[in-house]
C-alpha cells in the first residue's frame, strides 16, 4: 500500500516514458532498451559444461545426473546425423539451429516454442549438439557407426527465433581461424535467408505494407515481436498441412507456402528401416499432434481452443481465463489459428509402401495415429511408380496431373500481392532474384 503510494504519487508521472515508447514506437523503444542493456550489463561469456566421465558422478546440488558420458554423446550425435542420412559428404561448416519464439505480452508465447520439449527454446540443444559433434573422441567412435566426419568439418550451434527471425550463432570464438571465411559466408547466407523468410511471413499480416522488400519484412517481424499490443506476433505452425519425410533433393525448388514439415530421410541408407522407425516415432506424434491441435482449435475455437485473446486474464500463474471469471482456457486462441485450413496432416514418406507399413506397425503409438485416421499417409517409392495414398488399409495410386506444376521465377514472384493460401509451384533456379 505504501510502496504503491510512493510509486504512483511520487514517481508515477515518469512512467509515461516507457508507456508512450512501448506503445507508440515499439521498434525503436525495443532497440533503445537493448542498447541500454548491452551498454550497462555486458553479455557474460559462457561455456557449456556437458562432460561427464562416470555415470556415478553426481555433480549437482539437486542430486541429478548432469552432462553426458562419451557413449551418450556418440549416441546423440549419431541419432541426429545418422537418421537424417548425413553420413558422408559433410560441408566444411555445419550450422545446427534450435528454435524458439520471443514476443511481448503473450501468455501463449511458449505455444510457439518447441512442443516436443514442452514449450522450451531449442538454442541450448543446437549449441550442445554442435559441441558434441566437434569432440574428436566422439568423431572417432562415430566412424564405427558409419558416420565419418572429416577433420576439416566444424559444427556451429545456433538459435533461430521464429518470431523476430533473429539468428544467433554460439561459441564462435571456438571456430578455427581456417574456417573464418566459411563462417562469414554462412553468416551472410543465413542473414539473407532469415530476411527472405520474414518477408514471406509478412505476406500473411495485414499490418505489413504490400510490396515490402526483404529488409522491410525483417523489420516488420522485429517490430511485431516488440509490440505490446500484438495478439498475433507470428502465425507459427498455422496452415500446416503436410510432412514430407524424404530426401531434400525431392522437394528442392518447390514453393510449399510454409505449410510443410520437411524431414530428411534417405531410404537407400537405411536397409533395416531403423532410421525410419526412429524418425516416424518422433515426427508422427509431434507433427500429427501439432496438426490436430490447430485442427481442433480451429473447428471449435470456444470448445477446444481458448477463444479470442482480447479479454484473457492470466490466472494462478499457470494459464489464462476469460476476464473476471471462467474456467481455465486450454487450446490455441483464435488469433493463432484464424488463417488455418482445418485438414488432417498428410505424411509423405519417400520409401516403399511395404517398408513404411511394416515400420509403423511395430510402434503402437504411430500405428494408432494411422489406423484411427488422425493422420493421412502417402508414399513416393524411390524405385518409381506413382505416389500411393493409404486409404482404409489399401494403397490407391494418386492420379497424375498432366499439366505439371506452375513455374515461377522466384518465391516472391509467386506470392507477392497475395494473402490467401497458395498452390505449390516450382521455382525456376538460376533466376533467384529476391
Amino acid at each position, binding site marked *: 500500500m505504501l510502496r504503491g503510494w510512493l510509486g*504512483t504519487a511520487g514517481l508515477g508521472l515518469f512512467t509515461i516514458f516507457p508507456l508512450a515508447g512501448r506503445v507508440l514506437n515499439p521498434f525503436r523503444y525495443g532497440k533503445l532498451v537493448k542498447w541500454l542493456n548491452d551498454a550497462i550489463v555486458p553479455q557474460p561469456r559462457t561455456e557449456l559444461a556437458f562432460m561427464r566421465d562416470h555415470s556415478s558422478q553426481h555433480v549437482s546440488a539437486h542430486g541429478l545426473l548432469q552432462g553426458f558420458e562419451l557413449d551418450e554423446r556418440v549416441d546423440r550425435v549419431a541419432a541426429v546425423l545418422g537418421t537424417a542420412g548425413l553420413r558422408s559428404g559433410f560441408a566444411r561448416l555445419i550450422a545446427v539451429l534450435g528454435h524458439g519464439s520471443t514476443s511481448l505480452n503473450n501468455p501463449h508465447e511458449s505455444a510457439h516454442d518447441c512442443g516436443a520439449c514442452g514449450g522450451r527454446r531449442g538454442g541450448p540443444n543446437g549449441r550442445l549438439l554442435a559441441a558434441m559433434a566437434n569432440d574428436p573422441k566422439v568423431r572417432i567412435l562415430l566412424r564405427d557407426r558409419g558416420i565419418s566426419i572429416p577433420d576439416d568439418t566444424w559444427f556451429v550451434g545456433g538459435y533461430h527465433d521464429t518470431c523476430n527471425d533473429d539468428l544467433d550463432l554460439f561459441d564462435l570464438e571456438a571456430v578455427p581461424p581456417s574456417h573464418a571465411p566459411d563462417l562469414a559466408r554462412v553468416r551472410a547466407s543465413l542473414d539473407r535467408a532469415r530476411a527472405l523468410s520474414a518477408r514471406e511471413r509478412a505476406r500473411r499480416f495485414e499490418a505489413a505494407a504490400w510490396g515490402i522488400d526483404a529488409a522491410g519484412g525483417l523489420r516488420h517481424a522485429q517490430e511485431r515481436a516488440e509490440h505490446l499490443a500484438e495478439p498475433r506476433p507470428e502465425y507459427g505452425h498455422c496452415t500446416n498441412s503436410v510432412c514430407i519425410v524424404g530426401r531434400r533433393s525431392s522437394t528442392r525448388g518447390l514453393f510449399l507456402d510454409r505449410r510443410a514439415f520437411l524431414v530428411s530421410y534417405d531410404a537407400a541408407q537405411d536397409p533395416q528401416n531403423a532410421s525410419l522407425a526412429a524418425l516416424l516415432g518422433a515426427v508422427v506424434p509431434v507433427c500429427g499432434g501439432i496438426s490436430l491441435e490447430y485442427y481442433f482449435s480451429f473447428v471449435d475455437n470456444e470448445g477446444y481452443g481458448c477463444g479470442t485473446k*482480447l479479454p484473457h486474464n492470466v490466472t494462478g500463474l499457470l494459464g489464462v481465463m476469460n476476464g473476471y471469471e471462467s474456467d481455465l482456457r486450454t487450446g490455441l486462441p483464435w488469433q493463432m489459428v484464424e488463417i488455418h485450413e482445418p485438414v488432417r496432416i498428410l505424411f509423405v514418406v519417400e520409401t516403399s509402401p511395404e517398408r513404411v507399413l511394416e515400420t509403423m506397425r511395430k510402434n503402437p503409438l504411430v500405428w494408432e495415429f494411422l489406423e484411427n485416421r488422425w493422420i493421412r499417409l502417402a508414399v513416393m517409392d524411390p524405385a518409381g511408380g506413382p505416389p500411393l495414398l493409404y486409404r482404409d488399409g489399401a494403397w490407391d495410386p494418386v492420379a497424375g496431373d498432366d499439366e505439371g506444376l506452375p513455374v515461377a521465377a522466384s518465391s516472391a514472384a509467386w506470392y507477392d500481392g497475395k494473402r490467401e493460401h497458395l498452390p505449390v509451384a516450382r521455382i525456376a533456379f538460376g533466376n533467384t532474384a529476391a
Partner: protein
Amino acid sequence: MMETLLIAIVATPGVIFLALSLLWLAGWTPSERFVARLTSAGFGLITLGTAWLSWLIFATGAVSVHVSLGQWFHAGDYQFPLTILADRLSLPMVAMTAVLGGIAASFSVRYVHRDRGFFQFFLLLNLFAFGALTAFTAGSIDLLIGGWEIVGVTSVLLIAFFGERPEPARNAVRVFANYRIADVGILLASFVLHHGGSTLFTLLLPGEWPDQTSRLHGPEVMLAGFLMLMAASGKSSQGPFAGWLPRAMEGPTPSSSIFYGAVSIHLGAYLLLRFEPVIQAAPLVAMSTVAIGLLTALMATAANRVATDVKTSLAFASMTQLGLIFAEIGMGFPRLALLHVVGHAVVRTLQLLRAPSMLHDHHRMHAAAGGELGATGKLLHALPAGLRLWIYRFGLERGFLDAWLDRLVVLPVVRLAAVIGWSPFDSRGKA
C-alpha cells in the same frame, strides 16, 4: 483564442463519434484503417490542443478559461447552463485523458485488429473520451452529470463487449446497477446545489482551484457533501461499492486499462476534488471521506495480496490507491491528491496494458532468483496466526462486500419484485 481551443478539444471526439455513427447508420461501415486514422488524429489533435492551451494560459497569466455557450433549456427559474472551463484542476485531467486515451487507442489499433467488434470498440472509445472531457471541463454540475453518465454507459457497454458469453453480460449488469445506485447521489446533489443558489461552479465556488470557498452553508453543505461522496464512491469503487471493479475486467485489455486504470475510475476522485471546498466546509463529510478511503485501502490491499489473477489483483491495487487519494482529499491536500491521481493513472495504464505478460515476468523472476522466490509479507508474519488467517479469508472474500450486497440489496429487491408479481430475475440474476 483560448475559448475556441477549449471548445475544439472537448468537441473533437464527440464530432468523430457522431460522424462515424452517422456513416454507420447510413449503411457504411468504414474500414479499420479509416477508423484507426481518424481516432488517432482526433487524440493527436486534442493532445496538441491541450498543450497549446496550457501554454496560452501560462503565457497570458490567466489561471483559468471559462466559455459560456448559453443554456440548453430553462424551466421556471431553473436553467441548464452550457459552460465549460479549464483551470488548474481541469487541465491536468484533460491532458491525462488526451494522452492516455491516445495511447490506449494506438494500442487498440493492433490489439483489436480483425475482431468483429473493431468498429464498435472505437465508436465507444471516442464517445467515452467525449464524455470524460465533458465531465472534466464542465462548468456546472448539470453538464458534469452529462459527461459522467456517458462515461458510465460506455464503461458498461465495453464490459459487455463479449456479450455472447454469459459472464460479461452478467458482470456488466452488476456494474451498471452499482453505477445507477451511486448516481442517485450526484443527481440529488445537483438538486441541493440548485436550491442552495446555483449549479454553476463560478457562482457556487468563487476563486481559483484549489483556493476556493463554498457559498453553500447550513445543513445543505453536509447533505450535498454526503451525496457527492456517495456518487464518488460508486464511480471510484470505494466503501460499499468496492465490489464491482474486478468484475469490470471482462472487456478487451486496453478498455480495462483506460477505464479502470486511468480515467473512469478517477472520475469519482475528480468530483471530490472539484467540490473540495464543500467537503472541507462539512467536517463530518471530510472525516467520512478519510474513513471510507482508508478502510477501502486496507480491504483492497488485503484482497490484492491474495488475488489469484492479474486483472483482479490490479483492480484491487487501483482501489487501494484510490482509497489513499480519497483520504488525501478528505484531509485537505488537494494538490497532492491531483498529483497522485495523474501519477497513478499513468502507472496503472501501463500495468494493465502489459497484464498479459504476468506469466512471462513471473518465469523470468523465478529464473533470475535461481528458482527460489523469497517469501513476502514479513510484516504480516508478526501478527498472531489466527488473525493472519482471518485477514487471509477477509482478503480472499474481498471483504465479504459482494455477499453483503447480495443479502442486503439484491435479495430484498428480488423479493419485492416477486411480491408485486414482476420477476425479471432468474436464479442467476443475483449471482
